[in-house]
């Protein structure tokens, strides 16, 4: 399962690269996007952020691929919490990354600057478990960059992340995710 997911990931990166070779202008990339998750449980709110969201968007095919390294999340309430996150929940050693890859549903005129509310349909892989999702995002298209903003939620159960009974009141079953990234044309 996990091997397969990683395999798919490399395949996508590879395909993106080949597409990139074909028409360089259409690929927009980032390696320092920001992704934050909020777990608002009854007794504790946990917030952690990674500044290392990496992703690419091909404006011609409307395909995209994003990933984040799980152990790049910081800002937990305690170091112990971060360790739990990586070891117990995400199992970052086995599943170092979380991905979202797919295609934008509606046709977007990337040549025209403006704000576009779009829906990205793709495979969300967290904890090595893949789920098909539609995620609403705002694209703010400027001359030389595309800003991506998105708020969505994930259900831990859908990704086989089980919470020990003691932690029920400290970890929410539904996690809010906020993404903000600026994609720039891929340099030569």
């Amino acid at each position, binding site marked *: 399962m996990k091997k397969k997911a990683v395999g798919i990931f490399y395949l996508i990166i590879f395909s993106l690269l080949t597409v990139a070779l074909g028409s360089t202008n259409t690929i927009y990339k980032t390696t320092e996007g920001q992704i934050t998750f909020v777990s608002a449980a009854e007794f504790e709110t946990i917030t952690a952020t990674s500044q290392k969201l990496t992703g690419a968007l091909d404006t011609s095919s409307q395909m995209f691929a994003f990933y984040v390294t799980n152990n790049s999340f910081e800002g937990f309430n305690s170091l112990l919490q971060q360790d739990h996150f990586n070891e117990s929940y995400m199992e970052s050693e086995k599943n170092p990354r979380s991905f979202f890859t797919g295609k934008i*549903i*509606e046709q977007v005129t990337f040549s025209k600057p403006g704000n576009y509310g779009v*829906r990205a*349909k793709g495979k969300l892989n967290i904890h090595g478990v893949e*789920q*098909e999702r*539609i*995620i*609403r995002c705002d694209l703010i298209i400027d001359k030389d960059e595309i800003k991506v903003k998105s708020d969505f939620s994930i*259900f831990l159960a859908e990704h086989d992340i089980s919470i020990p009974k003691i932690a029920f009141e400290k970890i929410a079953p539904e996690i809010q995710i906020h993404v903000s990234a600026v994609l720039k044309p891929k340099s030569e």
Partner: protein
Amino acid sequence: MRKFWKFIFLLFSFLFLQNNLKAQLPFVRSIEIDKSVQDIKVQVIIQDKQRLMWLGTNKGLYRYDGSGFKLFLNKKGSDENFVTSLYCDKKGIVWVGYKSGNIFRFENDSLKNFDIEEGIPKESITGILEDSTGQMWFSTYGEGLYVWNQKHFYNINHDDGLSDNSVYCIVEDNKGIIWAGSDGGISKCSFVNKKKQIKNFSTENGLNDNIVKRLIWDKNGYLWFGTDNYGIGRLFIDSDKIEIPEAFKNWNRGSIESMLLIEHEVWIGTNANGLIDFEFSGDKRIRNFNGVDGFKYSSVQCLFRDDEGNIWIACKEHLLQSPGERIEFKKTIQGKPIANIHAVLVDSKKRVWFSDDSGLHQLSFDVDGTEQLKNFNIPNLRLPYKILTIYQDAFGFIWIGTFDQGVFRIDAETGNSVHVDDKKDLMKQSVLSVTGKQSTLWLATLSGAIKITLGDDALKLKCASQFEYYNSTNGLNNNFIYQVFPDRNNKVWFAQDGKGISMMDADGFHQFGENDSVKAKTFFSITQDRNGGIWFASADQGLYRYKTDPNVKTGKFNCYNLSNGLPSMHITGLCADNIGNVVIVCSEGIAMFNLDAETFNWFKDAEGIISVDADLNTTSFSPDGVIWIGAKDQFIELNTSIDRFRKIPFLTLEKVTAMLDPIDFSVYARIPANQNHLSFYFQGIWFSNPLEVNFQYKMEGLNRDWINTSDRTATFSDLKPGRYTFRLRCSRTNDFSRSAEVNYSFVILNPVYLQWWFITFSILAFVALVWLFLKIRDRRMNLVQRLEKEKLASQFETLKNQVNPHFLFNSFNTLANIIEDDKNKAIEYIEKLTDFFRQILVHREKDLITLEEELEIINDYVYLQQQRFEGALIIKNSITKLQAMKYKIPPLALQILVENAIKHNALTSGRPLTIELFFANEFLIVKNNLQPKINQEPSTGTGLQNITRRMQMLGFPAIEVEKTDTHFFVKLKLNETK
């Protein structure tokens, strides 16, 4: 070459079809949606669980209950209200899909946005459905399909294998698989455990067109599809085989917008060529409904059949309603109008024999639907003639009965005719009806009935013994016979003019009249239903039914008239089908009695039957289950087999208000007495003819009888407290006995002052008040009594003291001394003594006296004592006259204090006793210096106590007594004089 000829043949037949299509047509009528809105175009129609119709239009969502259309708009703006799809889910919630991609749900009387995290589509929602697992499916024109599993919204589009993202429609099969018609053909989709499975069908698999606009199921589970350019076809989903009907292989009527499957027909709504009907089993005929009754169905966007069997046709210009194929009309034959039909018979080969003013004709239909009309020339029939009846015997011969010219037997195939001669005067008789059973024929004439027995050789008609005659001379009541009916139980029934019903069985003749509750005198026709009941149509008394009780073996007549559901009293024809209906042709319409439901259903002006005006023998049951009725200017075909629809109005209580505020009537309501103004709003949904619906209501607890109304509201004001049940029923006639009933029970509460708890509380409160009053009164009485007692005690004490021998002894002793010294002074002394006793007597009855009066007593008393003690007693009175007048005091209070002071202290001239009376801080103070006697005078000790108690009872503050080493103080707080 063969192909070429086939092409030529088809082309030819098509041209032929165009002109000569079988022209029976269903009735349609136009319904106006909203006068105030221009250019409403209905896109989609559904019916919800409450039987209400929902119409999605380009101008918004309309709801129709039979009495009016109500518009519902979402709040997103006028251009966001173009409805493209509607669906009623299993819970009864209506889903609305818009052209803008918005999805709304109709809940609690308003449109609620279907808002999900994933966001809603941006392209037109073309279809909505709930699958058997509860997932909601949405088809879009541009984004493929969406599935909502109550948690997430999933998309299925081209990337997942769907042949095209532009989807027109979705339907579910009985295995839970979704079939979608799109610009890429037909796709079979499933979404189980988040796994998508898609299989596509396109022209490569045998589809005639890749643009599939409509999908519908037939009864056998075959999927019919309507395409953009190449007509229709069907897919056998088990074998994936695609079949295009022969008639559609050269389709030239353009794009298909809508389809409706009715029994063995598909109604096809086209974009530019109106409505087309294709009968896919049996005759496989195609009919074009374009231009019926002046309506032009240029574009038929939507077709829908409601639960009453009405077909709703949404055209570009109109919304139309039709009873559908249940009743069809034929007004022309081969383009010529029909006029004055006198007799009708559908023979065993489904050929329609009929007679009109021009003779006998036979109408039949070719496989392709072409009408064939054959006219029969009967050489021996003299002009002018009138063919009154047509009958087919067991050997296939056609018999006609004429006016004044007897009967003729015609060979149905060759047309050869025989004028039947009984060697008597049959050839001159008027034969009103020919009926029969097996090899027996019965003729009803104006001089009795004639029975003809057909021999083994049916062609032989020459033997006179074949004829038997029945008339008033041998058993019948009358010679004027309208019809003879041999039933299946070997009884022969005679419908007579003016003399009721006669019946002949093995025992002979039996007459039925008033004794058998048969009031009617004249009967026209007789038939036998599937269950063996015999039906009689009377001329003016309605319908009679003779039913044999299997236990007693005797029959009983029942009469049906306006009071128990028969819609008209003018019956001309009677005919029973083989599935349990009796069809009654009346001048105002056609009624159907269903033996299972024991109810009448009927078709009248709302179904296009304005006036039937039929002759007596014009009703005939065709082998294919259709009843043909020949009316004055048209044939009416009644398809009794299509009888699965709702026949009575669907009764709903829509709203109940108390004082204009809606109340929840799903539960037993307790309504306060001050809200006893109740209104009930109800609806009897009957789209076929909303005006026909009547209501009857009764408020149990108030009304004794049912109240009839055609209004949709009932109001009750000022209902008295009590229990009530509102009962409501509705009917299409005056007969409410078979109507569904709605009940609503509630209670009007007693006003607060009549509630049991209030009454109990009031009684308790009253008892408590009385008790309290008595208690207080008692206490006051006690007080007064005690005061009285104290007063008496004080008076007694004072008197006792004053008549104390010591006092008297001392007084007289003093007096004795004075008398010797000074006579005048002695007199004064005696006066003072007298005065003192007098004042005691005057004041002893009073509760209070003024301080001034008390001081007078003190003066007298002190004078008397001073005479005794001379300089040893000093009184210092610093009370002013003003103060003395201002205050009140219990009588003798001060006197007792002064007396106490004298009594308890030693008085010598060397150490005189000084008693001071003065006011300090509103207190009257009696102060004396303390020099206690060595030998105390006997003291009762009651003096001070007595004053204290008396003052307390009169409401004075307590007396304060202070004793220092040198002085004795008594402090009194006095009341001011009022």
